[in-house]
């Protein structure tokens, strides 16, 4: 039985929910059981947003994550709020362009990715989220990189078709980041 | 032998429960005559209110529904949106339409909901025994305004036609009375127009019928009709307050 609980947190507007949707759809494509649960309500208006994604090879019980295997923190308050909830042996992805502190735990694997800066440099300013997701896919063979294009194409609404290529670019940037 | 008077087919052949001298009988009859004349009984659905006319569902021979207090325009909306080919009317009193159901009334009008509303204004809550209505006149004595309606305490009457006529939405807003033969004849014309508007798909038509309540006004039927003329109609003048089609044609 393999279950991966991914908590993505940041500001509203950083594409937190979209990144979660991407991972959920990727899991669905891999024939996994998945759930995606957003925070909702007024807190979404410029406050903190978070999103719980569970990928499992057995039916998902509670969709609410209290102890994530993976934390993606896209701002400092989110890192501070959730850093101690990550299970020992888990992973933390930090947007180091926005968060200038280091994780002080030694029992987790931490990836510092200056995603927001990378996005700016590559003129895909709103897609720091997908850069981190790209890097995450690298570390998770069960998800793999195969088929990500199709997921992007499914998720980007036709009205915003221009974003398809940019999302693919962001994923690639994340994949290649060392 | 020539028939000079008969019951409209759209009215059931059963005794009405209304008090002696109550104009509800006249108004029911006018609605039924119009339904007969337009030949729409088989496709008409009526909505009864809560109030004295609560049992109107027994009196009209078309399909009928009994709505919650004040909600007749909403219920009628649900029916009309489900069966646009049917003719849908509500029959409501002043407490029902202008107090508890004001939101439903205003919004059905604003949507220009394609229904016909018959609004019977007798300035009092009849069924519950004569309490102050949203249309009770200043100074009017009722069970709950025993010293006369004090506008400083409980506010002013609502002039429904004047108010609804300010809306862009409704097609036809008119006030009639049934206190004399001439007014009864004009009332029928207005009611007929309100149904014809719906059949033509023109939208929301409301006919306010200034009525009387001899029992709760504490008057003889004749005296009550005189009071309509002397006190009610000066406050609630008869007239067409909005007629979109006529206004367009006049342009």
């Amino acid at each position, binding site marked *: 039985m393999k279950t991966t609980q991914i908590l993505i947190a940041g500001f509203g507007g950083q594409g937190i929910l979209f990144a979660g949707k991407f991972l959920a759809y990727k899991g*669905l494509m891999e024939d996994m059981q998945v759930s995606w649960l*957003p925070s909702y309500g007024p807190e979404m208006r410029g406050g903190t947003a978070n999103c719980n994604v569970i990928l499992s090879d057995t039916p998902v019980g509670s969709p609410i994550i*209290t102890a994530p295997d993976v934390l993606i923190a896209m701002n400092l308050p989110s890192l501070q709020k959730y850093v101690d909830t990550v299970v020992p042996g888990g992973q933390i992805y930090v947007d180091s362009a926005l968060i200038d502190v280091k994780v002080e735990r030694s029992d987790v694997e931490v990836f510092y990715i200056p995603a927001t800066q990378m996005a700016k440099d590559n003129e895909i300013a709103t897609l720091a989220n997908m850069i981190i997701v790209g890097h995450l896919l690298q570390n998770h063979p069960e998800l793999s990189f195969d088929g990500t294009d199709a997921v992007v194409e499914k998720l980007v609404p036709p009205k915003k078709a221009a974003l398809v290529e940019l999302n693919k670019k962001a994923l690639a940037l994340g994949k290649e980041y060392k | 032998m020539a028939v000079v008077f008969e019951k409209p087919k759209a009215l059931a052949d059963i005794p009405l429960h209304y008090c002696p001298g109550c104009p509800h009988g006249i108004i029911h009859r006018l609605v039924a005559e119009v339904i007969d004349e337009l030949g729409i009984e088989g496709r008409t659905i009526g909505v009864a209110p809560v109030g004295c006319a609560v049992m109107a569902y027994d009196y009209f021979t078309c*399909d009928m529904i009994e709505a919650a207090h004040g909600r007749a325009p909403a219920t009628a909306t649900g029916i009309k949106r489900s069966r646009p080919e049917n003719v849908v009317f509500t029959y409501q009193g002043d407490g029902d339409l202008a107090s508890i159901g004001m939101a439903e009334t205003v919004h059905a009008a604003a949507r220009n909901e394609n229904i016909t509303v018959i609004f019977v204004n007798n300035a009092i809550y009849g069924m519950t025994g004569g309490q102050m209505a949203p249309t009770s006149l200043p100074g009017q004595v009722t069970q709950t305004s025993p010293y006369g309606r004090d506008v400083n305490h409980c506010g002013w009457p609502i002039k429904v036609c004047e108010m609804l006529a300010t809306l862009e939405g409704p097609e036809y807003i008119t006030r009639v009375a049934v206190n004399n033969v001439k007014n009864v004849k004009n009332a029928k014309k207005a009611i007929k127009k309100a149904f014809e508007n719906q059949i033509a798909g023109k939208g929301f038509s409301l006919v306010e019928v200034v009525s009387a309540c001899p029992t709760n006004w504490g008057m003889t039927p004749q005296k009550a009709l005189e009071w309509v003329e002397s006190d009610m109609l000066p406050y609630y003048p008869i007239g067409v307050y909005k007629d979109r089609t006529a206004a367009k044609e006049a342009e």
Partner: protein
Amino acid sequence: MAERVLMKGNEAIAEAAIRAGCRHYFGYPITPQTEIAAYMAKKMPKIGGVFLQAESEIASINMVYGAAAAGVRVMTSSSSPGISLKAEGLSYIAGSDVPALVVNVQRGGPGLGGIQPSQSDYFQATKGGGHGDYRMIVLAPASVQEMASLTIKGFNLADKYLMTSMILADGTIGQMMEPISFEDAEVETYEKPWALTGTKGKREHNVVNSLYLKPDELEVKNFQRYERYKLVEENEPMWEEFMMEDAEYCVVAFGIASRVAKNAVVAARNEGIKVGLIRPITLWPFPKKALEAAADKVKGFISVELNMGQMIEDIRLYTGCKRPVALCNRCGGMIPSPDEVLEAIRKAQKGEF
């Protein structure tokens, strides 16, 4: 197999309703269920249906009443405070014996409460809400797939028994996405000779009405209605049992609470505690038989709820207080963690109820 797509719980309800033949939706905005209205607003005009945003919850339920009386499949949706406003209409719909589907995506209360998930409308849904003797079929989905399947089921049951089916969901199930497929949509249709269609001059007039001024007539009406309710109680209870075969303790939970509880049951089993889960899918009719059978073999129950303890009363009632029942609850929009439920199971094992 039909394609699995990811969908939000609220959207699954809307799509399922359309697939069930519902072409009339009347509602009023309230968090956390607005996706239902948004979905309907988008879809209905394209399929010849009606989406209408009413001026209030009260108006919307009375529009539902009118449309139901006119014989069409109709629904409304809201969240807790809005359901209180609809209570009047629910009573009229019950008293007039017309079918409707009402969705309550619950949030914390009382009053304006909060917008986070809750199950604190259990009493309101199962015991009345509006005035008078009446029941609603109350369906409690625990997944996005069930949001869809129970919506279709709800329409079928409403038409079959001429009453309201309520989907009693919560903010979590409404907002979450899970894979879903619609292959199982079994839509039943029923004749509605009582509907307001216009007499067409061919029959006596139909009257849809809840007013009976003669007490003996009203009593008979209520008796007849309760005969129908009895059939519902006999035929329609639904529940899921999980690890109950050898269970010595029984967790009872519905909706989102049942999913948290399931995790805790698995964790407790790993500790060697013989515990199982009964998940009522219909809250009314309550799965009496399942609870009775469990009461014969378990040492006690643990009711897991997102409220101050409402279903716990039914567990006691339907089992005749045969076994102790512990309450494991959070409220106000808080959700118990699997660890909290696990702790309650451990306590039960020690005889602490």
